[in-house]
């Protein structure tokens, strides 16, 4: 028999002492730190006297000689801290980041496996290009030269607009910002990233309702909620660590958790009730809830009167949605709707959480608007435990959106108007006229670009159908999968037609294999986020600074370095990096953030200096998990990550805004009001034809300590003067304001005042710089001012199309949107009979996005080895399909005779008539294995059919969002 070694026993007893119950009292903190147990579990139950809690000492390195580096997990927007142990430049171990007030040591499968990503068996090692269809190694120098020359050639022949800039939500904030700036210096607004296909409709819908397009509260704040609705969100798989807070909150508050979804998800398994709806009927569901709320007087009347504009229009629409009609359209019975409505309205605070299940529809923006309206009607915005909690999908999709990697904005939501361009040219210290000259025509400067969902249309449509000089001829793709956009067969054709394809990514991605290209295709190996340093913005608007864990592996380069090399090749590196130091070829991330700070007043990205952010990361343990506020240390009083808006200059020391629009706090402490973004009053026409003006400013409600006890418009120098507060401005601030607009300085607003003075003064007087307005239940200006139900383009209920048709065809974002024509044709052709199953898609916990990164990670790939489709046992039985067997799936827009071969997962997760597929797979395309098309050794471990080979036409009119969540398909046994 083996004998236990004696020294082990003694060491064990030390350990036991460390974690055990000593001296009659448990040292909770150190126990938890060592055991990975629920701090919440214990703190939550409160059974142990907190007096025994000792502060944790900083944890020393675990591996002797290893250096500890902190970064942020890239796989969703929760912002979990990744702790890397580095030894001799190699990432040797990963430890839990206990001190993070967000993740508290936790990870999901992806976060716990991130180290593999940097070990990189399957990473792209060096730049490559296609030579006569063969992947050939080239040097960086050759790559940059050839790419630059080809871009210039396209520019000369077809114009700047023919080069499309597809960026990434995995950029750091600095990367995102420089990418957007790069598109501007190149001369196009066709610059987009994953937010288009995830939360573009959220941003549009939410911003159009109350000012800013972001999560109003935070992951940890959901602990305060008494009723939680998940709608189109499977957070258990997409944002697993958020469930730590949600489940604990649910347990402590005995909260109601409703999952309103076509599918019984892993989240639904932990809900108190699952409400099964038909895909694409979110608006009727919300009206169904509002119907009960208004009928029973459960709405928050004071809140509506003081803080909401246009709720009466909603009330009228909700009246039409009788329980019978709601059940007919959505399938949800009256009793269940009433129960959900009552709890949401009465057991407050309530929050509504949504994700792609809501946003990825032709009515995405309207869905989101409906959700906001439900929160507004019940007074569930702007307080702890309430709000529209929008869970985003990548580390920095919030940041990349904020920083304008988008077709309709400049960084930080400055619109495409001359004033905004002038603001940024002041920040960049680049001549506005020169910038203008970079565009094909001056008008293009203020014309929204082409959304990422339509790039292939812009490539393949007749030249005259695309409202720019020429078709899209080049795709410059940084960190963006090719299989996440719908209508892949169409995209594959477009890839073949491109004159230039550049894929800058740690992996070759689907772009490299989807088409049949022979030349003019470049792969650039890019470092992952763990190999770069910089800031990242989580969903809750908190910004975390991540350190480089290891140097970029192989010949990979940091995004920032590639931008520098390209700028140099194109000849504008001096202008571009005027205020940014460049070390060798690598721009200094801190300097980039400082430039963002200098221009980021509109969204409150002005106060988060690199120094403050780094200090937060270094002192994570000082922050209280529940309030996210530092209770001690150098950052005392700050909210973790300085969630934007963090007003004023860094010197102003604003603590950040943990909850948006929270009038219970003074602005200086992170409070806020709804933002009057759409004027201060509106002329309404009454039924009798008379007109009246209605104020859009808040009515008798204001944030704590406000010196103005009512609504007010945004601050300009002129407003300050009227209030007599302009005297509070310092001479330096005044000088800056004068310089911005020497002719009419009074017009200089809080958003373009580079001194931060106007913000500072307004806040000193307790006022929100952007004003105090009403949220809009009626968002005049949108195609549907109030949400209107519209059937999906390919609906399984064609009989409802006559009553609920999609919007008429129109030209949007330079390309036609012919959804109406397609819907009409689908009804006429009886598509719903040939393709009787609803096809919807979603995320798996093991994979992320297009999946190249995660499917190349052997630890993750092992857990999901085949692309599959979930099908109800009844549907499977009808088709003779067994669980685990292969089956063939085809959609109405696929080339006839083509099929996708996937495994069948026969399950009651989906209802009868519904199928679901994960969207992470690629590498098989319509039953053809494309493994050989990857450069040798870079093929992901797991390949499979993409659901987007099956998905179909359909675009949201406001943002160009695609429709991968409600379409049709048919399945047969293989």
């Amino acid at each position, binding site marked *: 028999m*083996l004998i236990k070694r004696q020294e082990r*026993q003694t*060491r064990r007893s030390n350990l036991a002492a460390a974690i055990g119950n000593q001296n009659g009292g448990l040292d909770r903190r150190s126990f938890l730190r060592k*055991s990975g147990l629920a701090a919440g579990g214990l703190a939550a*139950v409160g059974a142990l006297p907190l007096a025994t809690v000792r502060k944790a000492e900083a944890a020393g390195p675990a591996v002797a000689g290893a250096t500890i580096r902190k970064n942020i997990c890239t796989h969703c927007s929760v912002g979990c801290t990744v702790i890397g142990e580095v030894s001799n430049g190699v990432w040797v171990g990963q430890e839990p980041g206990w001190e993070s007030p967000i993740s508290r040591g*936790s990870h999901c499968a992806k976060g716990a496996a991130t180290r593999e990503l940097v070990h990189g068996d399957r990473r792209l090692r060096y730049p490559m290009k296609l030579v006569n269809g063969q992947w050939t190694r080239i040097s960086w120098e050759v790559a940059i030269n050839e790419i630059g020359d080809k871009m210039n050639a396209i520019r000369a022949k077809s114009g700047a607009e023919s080069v499309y800039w597809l960026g990434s939500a995995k950029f750091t904030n600095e990367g995102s910002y420089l990418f957007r700036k790069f598109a501007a210096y190149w001369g196009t607004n066709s610059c987009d990233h994953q937010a288009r296909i995830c939360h573009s409709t959220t941003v549009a819908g939410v911003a159009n309702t109350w000012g800013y397009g972001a999560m109003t509260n935070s992951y940890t704040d959901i602990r305060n909620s008494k009723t939680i609705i998940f709608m189109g969100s499977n957070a258990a798989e997409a944002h*697993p660590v958020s*469930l*730590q807070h949600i489940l604990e909150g649910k347990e402590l508050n005995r909260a109601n958790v409703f999952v309103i979804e076509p599918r019984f998800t892993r989240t639904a398994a932990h809900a108190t009730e699952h409400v099964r709806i038909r895909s694409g009927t979110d608006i009727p569901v919300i009206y169904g809830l509002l119907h009960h709320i208004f009928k029973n007087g459960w709405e928050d009347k004071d809140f509506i009167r003081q803080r909401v504009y246009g709720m009466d229009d909603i009330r009228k629409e909700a009246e039409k949605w009788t329980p019978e009609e709601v059940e007919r359209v959505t399938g949800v019975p009256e009793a269940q709707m009433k129960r959900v409505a009552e709890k949401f309205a009465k057991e407050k605070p309530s929050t509504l959480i949504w994700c792609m299940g809501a946003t990825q529809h032709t009515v995405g923006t309207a869905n989101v608007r409906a959700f906001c309206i439900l929160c507004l009607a019940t007074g569930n915005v702007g307080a702890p435990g309430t709000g529209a909690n929008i869970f985003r999908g990548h580390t920095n999709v919030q940041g990349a959106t904020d920083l304008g990697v988008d077709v309709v904005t400049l960084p930080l939501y400055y619109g495409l108007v001359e004033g905004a361009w002038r603001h940024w040219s002041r920040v960049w210290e680049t001549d506005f006229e020169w910038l203008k000259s970079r565009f094909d025509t001056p008008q293009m400067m203020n014309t929204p670009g082409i959304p990422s969902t339509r790039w292939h249309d812009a490539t393949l449509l007749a030249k005259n159908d695309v409202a720019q000089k020429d078709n899209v001829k080049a795709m410059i793709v940084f960190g963006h999968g090719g299989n996440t956009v719908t209508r892949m067969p169409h995209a594959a054709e477009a890839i073949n037609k491109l004159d230039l394809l550049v894929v800058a990514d740690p992996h070759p991605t689907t772009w490299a294999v989807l088409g049949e290209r022979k030349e003019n295709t470049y792969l650039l190996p890019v470092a992952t986020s763990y190999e770069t340093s910089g800031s990242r913005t989580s969903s809750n608007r908190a910004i975390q600074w991540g350190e480089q864990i290891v140097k970029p592996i192989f010949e990979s380069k940091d995004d920032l370095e590639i931008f520098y090399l390209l700028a140099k090749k194109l000849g504008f590196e001096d202008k571009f990096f005027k205020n940014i130091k460049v070390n060798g070829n690598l721009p200094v991330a801190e300097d980039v953030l400082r430039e963002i700070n200098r221009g980021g007043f509109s969204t409150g990205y002005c106060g988060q200096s690199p120094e403050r952010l780094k200090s937060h990361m270094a002192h994570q343990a000082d922050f209280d998990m529940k309030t996210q506020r530092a209770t001690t240390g150098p950052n005392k009083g700050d909210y973790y990550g300085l969630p934007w808006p963090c007003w004023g200059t860094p010197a102003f020391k604003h603590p950040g805004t943990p909850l948006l629009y929270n009038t219970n706090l003074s602005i200086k402490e992170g409070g806020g009001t709804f933002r009057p973004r759409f004027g201060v009053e509106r002329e309404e026409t009454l039924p009798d034809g008379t007109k009246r003006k209605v104020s859009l400013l808040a009515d008798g409600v204001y944030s704590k300590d406000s010196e103005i006890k009512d609504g007010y418009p945004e601050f300009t120098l002129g407003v300050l003067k009227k209030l007599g507060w302009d005297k509070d401005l310092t001479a330096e601030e005044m000088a800056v304001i004068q310089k911005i607009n020497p002719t009419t300085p009074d017009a200089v607003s809080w958003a373009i005042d580079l001194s931060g003075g106007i913000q500072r003064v307004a806040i000193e007087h307790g006022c929100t710089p952007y004003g105090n307005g009403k949220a809009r239940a009626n968002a005049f200006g949108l195609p549907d001012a109030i949400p209107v139900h519209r059937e999906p383009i390919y609906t399984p209920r064609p009989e409802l199309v006559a009553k609920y048709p999609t919007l008429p065809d129109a030209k949007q974002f330079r390309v036609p949107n012919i959804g109406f024509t397609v819907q009409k044709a689908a009804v006429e052709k009886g598509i719903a009979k040939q393709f009787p199953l609803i096809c919807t898609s979603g995320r798996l916990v093991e994979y992320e996005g297009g999946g190249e990164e995660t499917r190349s990670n052997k630890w993750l790939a092992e857990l999901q080895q085949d692309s599959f489709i979930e099908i109800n046992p009844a549907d499977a039985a009808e088709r003779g399909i067994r669980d685990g067997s292969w089956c063939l799936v085809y959609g109405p827009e696929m080339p006839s005779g083509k099929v996708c071969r996937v495994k069948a997962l026969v399950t009651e997760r989906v209802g009868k008539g519904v199928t679901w597929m994960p969207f992470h797979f690629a590498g098989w395309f319509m039953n053809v294995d494309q493994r050989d098309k990857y450069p040798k050794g870079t093929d992901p471990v797991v390949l499979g059919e993409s659901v987007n080979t099956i998905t179909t036409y359909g675009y949201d009119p406001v943002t160009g969002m695609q429709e991968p969540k409600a379409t049709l398909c048919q399945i047969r046994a293989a």
Partner: protein
Amino acid sequence: MARMKFLCDADRCIECNACVTACKNEHEVPWGINRRRVVTLNDGKPGERSVSMACMHCTDAPCAAVCPTNVFYTTADAIVLHSKDLCIGCGYCFYACPFGAPQYPKVGNFGSRGKMDKCTFCAGGPEADNSKEEYEKYGANRLAEGKLPLCAEMCSTKSLLAGDGDVIAQIYKERVSKRGYGSGAWGWQTAYRENIAI
């Protein structure tokens, strides 16, 4: 002396598989060997629960009892470890194990198994603590560093608890009394012949 145990609070487990990949990461566990796994019961139906399962380090471990070459030993913390040097890969421990914990790399032709591999409670094996040999055979020895198993430490929802059995039982009890429900300490009766009375 602490009696180490695992406890999976199924009402918290969301099948995120962090425990699985954390284990792979910490010990560089090869493809095909699953020291820990998550099983979902009543999949897709109301009442669905997922449970993360690995070696439970049983009291009076069946694997140890049936092993023809006596490779198992129990540490002072009641962790059931084994010596790969003595293992002949007969598979008997897998037959006896109530939790399907033992794993075998496939070697050679037909069903011949390599040396058994299983969860070590991050406590390595008979070799010197944190030695190269120990790491290669059994993975990291976190306990020797004063840390607990990484699967539990990284659990996304703090569902998987690892540590002194009395302490984790207490945490679980408090959770259940606070929230009012609990599906039970999965595997405890089988592994430890005890249940957490609530």
